[in-house]
């Protein structure tokens, strides 16, 4: 391997890593606020890329159906729980949040069928379609188990992943898609070819990380999220409702997942089940940060991207084995760096 190849691999790795950064940040965000290891994160990215691809080819994306069905189930659950509790006054709000807001993007997509939307509008619509998925999944799958242990929540998260990636096959079919690139420009930086798309990915990752930082440091709802993640009971005592911070975390996570899908769409061919591996690799990055530190998580995700890129050069066949095996030394390092407290959880499953 010479410098030339190494630098190509490095650029490639950083671009892949930047995608993982977005997903890894979202994973840490959701985990710290809700204790849920949101395994289906990568699926959100796949959904947004595939949705955009279908919009670009003039088809009605399957996300329209998925979001409508999820919203219907969530609304039903919300209504029955309010009726059972005898709190009819809360029903109009429930209808607004679960019956109207989430189905607006599907409605727009359905109405705009046949008209060719401008490029940026397609991207926005794809993002808007993916945005409600995570909060709705939260309402349907996780909130009824709010008292469960981290382990039960994790098992549910894995099940949710299999459910929505299976549905993705139904909605998008088995073919792979690649979306139109945002820009086709190519730069030559000291002999290394860098495409504008790659640059965009890295810039977007940096921008969203920055925005997330500002959100946590400068806004009251960001601070509420921080408070919930550092001490749930304490946050409740000062009037922060875990359901609300949870929904915000899922919305933000959905945004990060959706954006990363839009960015990765033009660079890689995505299939209905591509999300799982993307999500897991991002998770490897998140573990570097101990599922708590955002900067370390970002660094870890970049490192995973680089490792993957170099591993595929040495042996494209077992690159997945290399990347996932890398988790084990990282985990050992983590457990030495920050010994876990014995979890006293009586209830699992």
């Amino acid at each position, binding site marked *: 391997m010479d410098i030339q190849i190494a630098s190509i691999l490095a650029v490639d790795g950083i671009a892949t890593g930047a995608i993982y950064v977005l997903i890894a940040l979202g994973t840490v965000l959701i985990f710290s606020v809700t204790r849920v*290891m949101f395994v289906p994160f990568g699926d959100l990215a796949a959904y947004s890329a595939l949705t955009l691809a279908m919009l670009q080819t003039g088809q009605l994306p399957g996300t329209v159906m998925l979001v409508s069905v999820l919203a219907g189930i969530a609304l039903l659950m919300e209504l029955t729980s309010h009726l059972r509790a005898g709190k009819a006054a809360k029903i109009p709000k429930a209808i607004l949040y679960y019956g109207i807001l989430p189905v607006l993007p599907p409605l727009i997509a359905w109405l705009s069928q046949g008209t060719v939307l401008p490029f940026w509008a397609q991207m926005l619509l794809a993002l808007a379609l993916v945005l409600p998925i995570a909060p709705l999944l939260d309402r349907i*799958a996780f909130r*009824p*188990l709010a008292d*469960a242990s*981290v*382990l*039960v929540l*994790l*098992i*549910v998260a*894995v*099940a*949710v*992943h*299999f*459910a929505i990636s*299976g*549905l993705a*096959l*139904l909605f998008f079919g088995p073919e792979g898609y690649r979306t139109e690139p945002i820009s086709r420009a190519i730069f030559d930086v000291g002999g290394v070819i860098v495409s504008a798309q790659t640059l965009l990915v890295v810039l977007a990752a940096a921008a969203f990380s920055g925005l997330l930082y500002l959100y946590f440091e400068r806004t009251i709802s960001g601070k509420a999220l921080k408070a919930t993640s550092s001490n749930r009971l304490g946050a409740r005592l000062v009037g922060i409702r875990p359901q609300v911070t949870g929904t915000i975390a899922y919305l933000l996570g959905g945004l990060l997942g959706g954006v990363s899908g839009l960015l990765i769409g033009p660079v890689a061919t995505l299939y209905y089940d591509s999300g799982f*591996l993307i999500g*897991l690799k991002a*998770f*490897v990055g998140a*573990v570097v940060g101990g*599922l708590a530190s955002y900067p370390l998580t970002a660094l870890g995700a970049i490192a995973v991207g680089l490792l993957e890129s170099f591993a595929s050069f040495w042996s494209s*066949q*077992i690159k*997945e*084995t290399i990347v*996932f*095996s890398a*988790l*084990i030394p990282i*985990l*050992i390092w*983590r*457990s030495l760096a920050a*010994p*876990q*407290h*014995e*979890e*006293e*959880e*009586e*209830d*699992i*499953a």
Partner: protein
Amino acid sequence: MSAPVLSPRVKRLLPWIVAAFIAVVPIFAGAFTITLMNYIGIGAIVALGLVLLTGFGGLTSFGQAAFVGIGAYAAAWATAVMGLPPFAGLALALALTAAVALFLGATTLRLGGHYLPLSTIAWGIAIYYLFANIPSLGAHDGIRGIPPITVFGLSLAPNTSIYYLIFALVAEAMWLVSNLLDSREGRAIRSLRGGATMLASVGVDLFRMRMLIFVFAAVLAGLAGWLYAHMLRFISPSPFDVRASIEYLLMAMAGGAASIWGALVGSALVVFLKNWVQDILPHLSKNATQLEIVAFAVSLILLLQYARGGVLSLLGTFVPRDTTLPPAAATGLPHRTPPAKGSEILRVEGVTKRFGGLVAVNNVSFDLQAGEILGLIGPNGAGKSTLFNLVSGALGINSGKIVFLGEDMSNARQMDIARAGLARTFQHVKLRPGMTLVDNVLLGVYIRTQAGFGKCLLHLEREEERRATRVALDALDAVGLGGKAMELAGNLPLGNQRVLEIARALAADPILIVLDEPAAGLRKGEKDALAVLLKAIQARGVSILLVEHDMDFVMGLVDRIVVLDFGSKLMEGTPAEVRASPAVQEAYLGGVA
């Protein structure tokens, strides 16, 4: 409860009824049903490992199918590629899964909480990709031409023949696991989930325990893989991916994660459900195989939301709990030689503990003589409980020295301190609410018994177990709970629970018992009874160190008192001296005006 309840006799017969049913199935069932039953048996063996690992041990594995794969590939490679007989393949399969599990366990089992299950996903995927990419293992095409198993010249190629082998092994595995759970090691395994701190305090090596069940579950999976390879006679990587792992986990959960029968019931449930789904779905969609996984995922979520204990837990009320006392020997276990009365057993020398900037315990020294009751008192936040945790090894010290029975135990592990003869109770009672009183006390006897994992599996330790039971029953008698030996600890009132903790400590035959606020939350009468009990323990030659808030209780009981205030030792003396000390009065009541 008015629900019909099975009589104990019917309950004892139940396994035999099930066994007889399974034995006659091939007589009337068609070939397809037999094939399904074979899958159920193989699934049950894997799920049984998960019941032990997840249901009892609290360790979730999303990678179990990878172990099945290692077993299957080892069998296929040994027979189809190398031409060895199937039983050589079995030896290779079991040895290889055990070796891989040992390596993975050594690297990942120290991880807490969610890290472990997620790491199982990672290595599960890594192993799957290895199968799919190693050319000598046939890569994505797999290995064909695996010969059938032959037993005494009899070929097990027909489905009905291997059926009996599979279910014989299922029965064998269930027997081993039920032996294990009803043994010294089994009680520790049943406490792993949620009882880690307590287990360490009675001298159990948690890491070893987790490793043993992890490797055992992997070996069961490897055995299932061997059967799988020889049943299908052809293998490819896809049955060993993460999806399959989820399916095994679903089996364990669906039946009842904390029940041996749950593995078989869950496996049957999943296999039949899967078969039914495969019949139905093609009528609904052309992507039936994908919808299958959706149906599974949704049923797993519903199961966790509505019946977290699995199907068998719904039937649980019909099966009565066994309340007959376990057999006990006439004599208990040999005692330790107690140190001579008045000799030093514990010396705390200039011990300091910091939490960040806060000095919780500052340069504290005291000692304790054999046969003595020493009280540790001080206002809230004085550092009593921290000092306690330092002495018992639950926390490490920053500087100073702790000497127990002449040995430096400054930063020894909790379990080693427990083994040296220190038993403790907890301020917030740590018992196993779902276990009987005898079983809870038997946990205290753990360090006095030796039977290892293998002996427990085969129940070769019954004599020792009977003697341990004698010790436990005597300890229960000593604290006045002898009549409730088979009740569940969780049903006792708090006062009795505290006393039960003391019985568990006594059963360990300790040199020193440390009690963390034993009188907290007790009524007057209970406190008096406790004082009498502690005096009786002292009379047996056991020393006691106790932290307590209740001054009346302490003053009438202890020989000497150490007073702590703001992490430092204020004074030390007899109860009368402490009562008379102006410094102590000031610490408790504020400055004298």
